[in-house]
């Protein structure tokens, strides 16, 4: 299991809406946001590749999202 801290940047003002759509995802836990264009989240995925794929998918599928930046990556052998 890979647990990562990520910063997600969105178009101005879109962060709350993105947060709402991300909040439904079971492996994303939102931990904060600036209310406008930045979100902080903890993401858990099976592997580093899955994490990258998730980030790429977000960038591709959700045009409100401008960037996904990992700030911390941890591996849980479980």
């Amino acid at each position, binding site marked *: 299991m890979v647990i990562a*801290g990520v910063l997600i940047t969105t178009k101005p003002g879109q962060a709350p809406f993105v947060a709402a759509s991300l909040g439904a995802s079971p492996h994303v836990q939102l931990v*904060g946001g600036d209310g406008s264009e930045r979100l*902080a989240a903890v993401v858990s995925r099976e592997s580093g590749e899955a994490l990258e794929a998730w980030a790429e998918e977000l960038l591709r599928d959700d045009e409100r999202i401008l960037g996904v930046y990992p700030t911390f990556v941890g591996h849980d052998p479980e």
Partner: protein
Amino acid sequence: MSISRREFLESAAAASALAALSGLPRPVQAAGGEKWVKSVCRYCGTGCGLYIGVRDGKVFAVKGDKDNHNQGFLCLKGFLLPQILTAPTRCLYPMIRKDGKLVRASWEEAMSLVASKFKEAIEKYGPDAVAFYGSGQGLTEETYVANKLFKAGIRTNNVDGNPRLCMASAVGGYVTTFGKDEPMGCYEDIDHADVFLLVGTNTAEAHPILFQRIVRRKEKAPGTKVIVMDPRRTPTARIADLHISFKPGTDLAILNAMAYVLVHEGYVDEEFIKNHVVFGEGTETNKSFEDYKAFLAKYTPEKAAAIAGCKAEDIVTAARWFGARGKASMSMWTMGLNQRTEGVWANNLVHNLHLITGKIGTPGSTPFSLTGQPNACGGVRDGGALSHLLPYGRLIANEAHRKEMEKLWGVPEGTLKPKPGPSTVEMFQKVEAGEIKCLYIMCTNPGQSLPNVGRYRKALQRDDVFVVVAEAFHPTRTSELADVVLPAAAWAEKEGVYGCAERRYQLLEQAIPPSGEARPDFEILCDLGRRLGLGHLVPYKTPTDIWNEILTVCKGTVYDFTGMTRERLRQAHGLLWPLPTPDHPGTNRRYVKGEDPFVPADWPHRIKFYGRPDGRAVVWMRPFKGPEEAPDAEYPMYYTTGRVIEHWHTGTMTRTCKELVHANAEAVAELHPADAQKLGVKTGDKVKITSRRGSQVFKVKVTDTSRENLVFVHMHDDQHLCNLITIDALDPISKQPEFKVCGVKVEKA
């Protein structure tokens, strides 16, 4: 346990993400009165494009040029460039030594003194009593003016430059193997290479932006292999799939052994060899592939491993990766190969690997020498400002070349002396011997950067030697020895062309007026020319005047960049020569049909090495030879020097920047833990390193980056001169000194 670990990870991830939330930087807002001037980084030979931000006549920031090869990235040195312009050590007015002290003088006073001293020396002792020592950091135009003034005006071939200390062996390697200097590949090859052979280069620290490109290639194409051959486990080696650590100075054996494996395991491209390669030994190219095979028999991986102190299977693996069919292999090297008494040979051996496998001239396959200075290639190598060269591939020893240059420069036949002058170290030996009476040093710091520098510092201090230093910073370890210090305009304060490692020429535009009384170097040189009665040779008013003359000089040579008009350089974000016409896009890969304008369209093969008369490159048989001074009982450890990412060269610029000094304050002796234990020292203690030439005390850093029995010191610290210890032995062909290997003893201090 797993739960608490999970909790720990989640809380750590959350803390980290929340810290990041505080905000990403916004792009610099363009306020009124701001302008961004296109330029190039002042530091290493990568030549990163950047924009200089100017507000109220002052440089306040730089930002990367997204349209240049660096795609907007800069390393931290480049980013912090604005600080050097306002450094307290900027040299702002001319100075003359009076009663042993440098005191402020007027330009008139200083220049008339310089001119009278030069005149006197020339009249009394002949033109060879004066010399010019230039730099791979001077602008192309400046170096060209100096070269012309001294060789055609004063009529001395005492013109050399610091590229002799860094690039001469690469030049020798390219010239002997391919007939002409400069790499055939380009940076873009990095994006296509499947195998990187990095030998004797700490790319991560010395060429960060190129290293970054390698890293990105590796990320994009996960099968990419990186082989690093370096005695130290450098930051570069940390991304390596295979790191071969070997005894310094044994690289020739390893490279030959790699060729042995390539030949004996069937990685050879017979077709390529048949069409493009000849074999040679010594200076003759009369050998065959069979002779080469016989020569390689001495270099089985086992034998080479025994010589080099590495693992034979690593050599085999490296060769197999390098030779794998269908894979593109790119080799890169810097001072680890060049700064050796067999530097040219080592360069030849790297080229051999590419030639016997045919891995050359296709995207991603090329031998590629990395340069250390921003204009070593463009100004000094291409411009021919070395003691044996004339501009753009012409040789002093070649009568036809001399005649051609005399015509181009409009001087009478026979003006150019036929005998090559002394190379850098030999030049300073002539200073030491009192043969050179006046020395003009431009934009470089030999008082710190020469090997065995203690000896040559003494030479510069001779009473009967008149030393002129034109420099943007004072004091430096050279200007402190000068008789006259002339304030030169710094980067951003003048205009000119830089040519970096991949034959890329780019224009640095002037962003701000020179500080204080400083002047651009070409103006100072033209002034000197006029005062010596040679004004007709150097009549230039602007750098563009000089550039236009350079375009006429390069025309018809294989360097031909006649299409690079000033206007086009202003528009472009770097252009790669050959570029013979204004509508030519530039040449990414030399010698390749369809890309290089000098390969005829009807040439039957894909490559023509037109630098050589037969159009074939040479695979040279270069036997293993050790360094000049291997460790012995008295001086039992290897000593080597190199770079760190935070600083550059002699630190005259980077050490004025507080952030960089904070990140890396002083040169430390990196010792392997086993050696540290033997010496009974730990990080922070001091050791005295002594060679036959001199000694210096350094703080210790114990790190397994180092190899056992090897001590490494970075070369940027002006207070701890690593070069008091290095050896001034020269490569017989390139005359490049062997900075990289000597024997020392290390004692606790």
